[in-house]
């Protein structure tokens, strides 16, 4: 299974080679077919498990160690649920890649598209096959990344870039919540392996972190699956070329969230919180999605919003969690993937063959492109939930589940019925509007699509019909085990095309009529509901936009406040922090700190030297002449040297004298070029700075007084005094320390000097002239 996942990445790597390969060079779409062989093979490989996994309900586990110390492994799990998804991903992937070969024929970035599509497919496969939360998350994020690049495929257009960014931010933002949730889940369950986690339902439900972890995971899933309030990114992601949209929206990425919820249902599901969040949000999303679909006119937009509806439905069903609901969810999932995949490809064909991108500019294409029209119609029927298509099966089950929902049945049912009606309208818009009526004026003369592009819609739409007719078989071979996987136990619910006359059927019939009526007054309906645009102004998309603006503003403000460019403010903050920390700690320990104030042992000449030093320091600080300041530095140098001398440090004293002399020479050499001091700051600022400076100084004084009063241990220097002559053969202990006991310090020190000299040379001799990097 690892190979199944990795092969996608490998193919992605060689895609550019294949794309440019000489035998295929004449017809670039040829590469599409070649590369499509990979998903085809994968599809067949997964299909070969239909008997064992699908029919017999086996679970195949495969594990490769990755980071065992952290409980992260590359473990894969092929059960009904992952098989269903894997088949959808690889199957639809086959058509998409083949389609892309033709759709973007001659496009300069076609090779990159292959790379991205294949990587994306591989990531999706990894996601649905992973049995380890963290590796699942890895693939989860990979799908976000690849989809970002796919959505931004036409990256030279700004809207395209913005949409890609929006999708990325929403899904990644959710991804972060998901990560936190996963970490909590792993902590609560003691493992990241799904196989282990899902069997600990009780433990998880009772865990103190159940609610937060659930909410975090749900946020992650919702953002990916475009649940309200994250639904807005999906239609915007329509900037992508059609094969991309189709792939993203039919089978794959957007369903990742649904997949995750379904996957975790046995472990986390079944609580009121679960049902409440998933059920209500799902239902609301379903309604919003379909409502907005009807309100839109752009071909892809309509399809995208209808996808939102489907995702809402799925979420709602998983939230309800009853056997019927789970069955409905799986059926709906399959149905949606088929018809939506077909319809997106059809949308692409319309765009490709006519140049139209809006339903308002379509009509009457049936004669020019009959095959497309036919299969578009079939897919639309499935979308509308019309018998005998598989969509019908799914919709009936959905209505049944909603009606029997243990919680919030009334709300859910109301929304479900409303959505069913609008769903029919959407189906009509898609299935009727472009094909019938007056022939619309188009940029391109309508023509039938080539086989590579037609293959997808034809097969997928046909499957909608075939599967609908063989619903029980589908359950037996495929959905049954998936349902078991989601529910955590086998389900006694049979899938069939015909349930007899019951309430759901009635609702279906009513909604069919109502939906078609609504289609008839589509324009009017859209006009009548224009008021909802006002709502959009305060809707989640606006939140997103505002957040983006807020980030810019807040960050600019913060930078203005903090990174002012004024060294003195930086110093104020730095030193202020230091003083605050030191003083606060001193205050905390005020009882055990012992300030030593003892002036009894002073000698007058020491006081005088110190006094002159102090006065010189004052002079250096307040003089208005820089030359006086330098002279004051000289005085400081001499007095410091005297202090060192008075306290038994001849080497220091000599060094100080020499360094001071050279410092003065350096300053004098440099000052020649510089202007005199100008009084730059007004008095109050100088007082403020002086205040801070005095506080810093006082802090250092306090520190020193307390350290003078405290000596915890004897100094190690007695060792040097004792060993200098006998072991190091030197009588000047300071020098012996420098060149023998602590050679490394001195070594570092001379390197500092050398570095300073090198820097100085560079500064003086190196003028900024050449700009080459």
């Amino acid at each position: 299974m690892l190979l199944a996942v990795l092969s996608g990445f490998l193919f992605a790597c060689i895609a550019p080679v294949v794309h440019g390969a000489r035998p295929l060079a004449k017809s670039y779409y040829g590469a599409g077919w070649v590369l499509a062989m990979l998903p085809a093979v994968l599809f067949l490989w997964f299909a070969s498990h239909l008997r064992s996994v699908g029919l017999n309900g086996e679970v195949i586990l495969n594990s490769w160690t990755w980071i065992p110390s952290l409980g992260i492994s590359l473990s894969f799990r092929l059960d009904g649920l992952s098989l269903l998804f894997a088949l959808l991903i690889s199957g639809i992937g086959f058509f998409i890649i083949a389609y892309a070969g033709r759709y973007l024929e001659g496009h300069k970035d076609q090779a990159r598209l292959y790379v991205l599509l294949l990587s994306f497919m591989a990531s999706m496969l990894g996601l649905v096959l992973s049995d380890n939360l963290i590796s699942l998350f890895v693939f989860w994020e990979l799908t976000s990344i690849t989809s970002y690049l796919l959505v931004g495929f036409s990256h030279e257009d700004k809207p395209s870039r913005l949409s890609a960014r929006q999708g990325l931010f929403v899904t990644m933002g959710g991804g972060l919540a998901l990560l936190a949730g996963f970490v909590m889940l792993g902590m609560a369950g003691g493992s990241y392996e799904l196989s282990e986690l899902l069997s600990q339902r009780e433990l998880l439900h009772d865990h103190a972190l159940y609610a937060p972890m659930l909410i975090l995971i749900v946020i992650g899933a919702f953002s990916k699956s475009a649940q309200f309030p994250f639904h807005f990114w999906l239609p915007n992601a329509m900037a992508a070329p059609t094969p991309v949209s189709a792939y993203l929206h039919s089978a794959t990425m957007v369903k990742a969230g649904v997949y995750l919820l379904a996957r975790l249902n046995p472990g986390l599901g079944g609580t009121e919180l679960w049902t409440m969040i998933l059920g209500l949000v799902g239902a609301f999303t379903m309604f919003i999605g379909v409502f907005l679909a009807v309100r839109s006119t752009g071909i892809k937009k309509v399809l995208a919003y209808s996808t939102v509806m489907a995702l809402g439905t799925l979420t709602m069903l998983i939230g309800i969690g009853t056997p019927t609901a789970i069955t409905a969810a799986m059926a709906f999932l399959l149905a949606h993937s088929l018809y939506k995949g077909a319809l997106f490809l059809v949308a692409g064909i319309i765009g490709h063959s006519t140049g139209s991108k809006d339903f308002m500019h379509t009509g009457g294409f049936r004669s020019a492109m009959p095959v497309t029209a036919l299969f578009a119609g079939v897919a639309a029927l499935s979308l509308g939930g019309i018998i005998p298509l598989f969509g019908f099966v799914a919709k009936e089950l959905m209505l049944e589940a909603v009606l029997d929902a243990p919680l919030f049945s009334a709300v859910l049912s109301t929304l479900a019925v409303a959505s069913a009606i609008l769903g029919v309208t959407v189906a009509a818009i898609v299935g009727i509007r472009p094909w019938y009526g007056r022939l619309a004026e188009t940029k391109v003369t309508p023509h039938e699509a080539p086989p590579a592009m037609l293959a997808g819609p034809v097969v997928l739409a046909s499957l909608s019909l075939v599967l609908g007719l063989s619903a029980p078989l589908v359950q037996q071979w495929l959905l049954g085990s998936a349902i078991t996987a989601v529910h955590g136990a086998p389900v006694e619910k049979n899938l069939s095309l015909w349930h007899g006359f019951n309430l759901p059927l009635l609702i279906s019939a009513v909604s069919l009529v109502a939906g078609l009526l609504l289609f008839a007054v589509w324009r009017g309906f859209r006009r009548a509901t224009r008021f909802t645009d006002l709502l959009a102004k305060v809707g989640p998309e606006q939140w997103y936009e505002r957040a983006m603006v807020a980030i810019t503003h807040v960050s600019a403000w913060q930078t203005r406040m903090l990174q002012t460019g004024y060294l003195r403010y930086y110093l104020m903050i730095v030193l202020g922090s230091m003083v605050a920390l030191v003083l606060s700690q001193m205050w905390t320990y005020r009882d055990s700190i012992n300030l030593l104030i003892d002036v009894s042992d002073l000698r007058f000449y020491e006081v005088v030297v110190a006094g002159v030093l102090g006065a010189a320091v004052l002079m250096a600080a307040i003089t208005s002449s820089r030359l006086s300041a330098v002279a004051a530095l000289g005085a400081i140098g001499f007095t410091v040297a005297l202090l060192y001398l008075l306290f038994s440090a001849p080497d220091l004293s000599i060094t100080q004298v020499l360094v001071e002399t050279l410092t003065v020479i350096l300053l004098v050499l440099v000052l020649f070029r510089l202007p005199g001091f100008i009084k730059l700051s007004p008095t109050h600022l100088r007082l403020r700075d002086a205040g801070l400076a005095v506080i810093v100084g006082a802090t250092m004084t306090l520190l020193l007084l307390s350290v003078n009063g405290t000596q915890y241990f004897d100094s190690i220097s007695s060792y040097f005094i004792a060993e200098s002559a006998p072991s190091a053969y030197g009588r000047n202990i300071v020098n012996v320390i420098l060149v023998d006991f602590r050679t490394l310090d001195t070594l570092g020190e001379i390197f500092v000097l050398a570095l300073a000299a090198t820097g100085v040379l560079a500064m003086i001799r190196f003028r900024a002239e050449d700009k080459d990097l």
Partner: protein
Amino acid sequence: MGHTTALLALPIIIPLLSGALSLIYWRSRKAQRIIGVLGTTALLVLSGMLVAEVWQHGIIVMHMGGWQAPFGIVLVSDMLAASMVFMTGISAVTTAFYALGSVSKRHEHFGFYPLMHLLLAGVNGAFLTGDMFNLYVWFEVMLVASFALLILGGERAQMEGAIKYVALNLVSSAILLSAIGLLYGLTGTLNMADLGYKIGQLEDDAMISVVAMLFLVAFGIKAAAFPLFFWLPASYHTPRVAVSALFAGLLTKVGVYALFRVFTVIFPFEDTFAQSLLIWIAGLTMVTGVLGAAAQFEFRRILSFHIVSQIGYMLMGLALYSPLAIAGGIYFIAHNIVAKSGLFLISGLVYRFKGSYELKELGGVYRQYPMLALMFLICAFSLAGLPPLSGFFAKFLVIRAGVEAHAWWLVATALAVGFMTLYSMVKIWAEVFWKEQEVCHIKPPRKYHGGTRIMYATVIGLALLTIAMGLAMEPLFLIAQMAAEQLLDPAGYIEAVLGVTP
């Protein structure tokens, strides 16, 4: 253990000698280049051997000059130090190779190579030394080398940035020096293990806690922690990009390392005021850094601010003070060195092709240089913490540690900051790589002449490394874990150095 091996000193001696030789051969570019490549490669190899050595033998100690601890200076390598030295080696090799293609004759003539070597020596010295004052000395070596590298070129922006950089870093050095002096006055010793040992014996260590604050501030400045980071964004974008990359990769990490070292061995951190403080510092560092980046529209400035925010994650590892957290922090350091250096180097290539660092003026790189774009994506997504790159696991570790410690706000901050990092990376991607360039001010050099190829190679190397660090996480995590366990058990360190059990 007291295992003595020359391996311990070589990561300092080699760059010191390389630097000295490069200074001797300052007239010959060729010699300097050869020394540059050989010296850094040797450094990498030796540091790899050092890691292996520590892995096998635990903490190793060398008593420089043959003087017993705590009297002489000891070099100590636990796993933290060894792995930091190894990361320095990686940084060194990339810089040296990238420099072959990118550094101009004049830069070479005025000391790029010796400065680079000595910067590395300072960094490694700081990592390996077991003596507080010696740490100060190596900090200064590193600092002055960085000063000189920073101004190499002499442009106005460099001078302006350098003045702030120099002033603030010198203030921090003065604080550090004062803190060391006070600590010496209190304890009469400078050896870290001895300090830890003696302070551990104290009943009343009021003044120690006070002085610890000075260390926190001094190293906080070096590490560019909130609110002490100002010098970094003011200057890091001004030098040549090979230099920026080296700085970004290494300098602040040394400050972080020092915090890790000092607040485990000398002032154990658990349940102290300093720890609770550091939690706040970590969070605020992340946030202010990332917001700073969000406000920028210049390639390298964005990257510079992100250094700050990433420091927050590393500090978070220390602040949480659990084995996992510290391992996470350590892994984060390693990851950041790779990813951040890579990004800076990429910005240099972009500059070479497009002649600007301003997002506004850039564009079209994805179309013209897809390989470069891919490398950027890898490094940028790694920085933003996306799987399966090293950044993801770095983030994962600290977040998991945060969750385990129930540090909810810190976890939330870390996650949000991860998002904001993505924000900035996407901004760069969209503007520099996706967008069409309006006007190109320079004539791009021929696409693949020798220098560019070497630059490319280093960038690719780093990108592959960040992938590899993610994929081969297990051994790295074990190393980080070992480092963390050693850090959290100062007794082992003390015993290795002093031969006494506290």
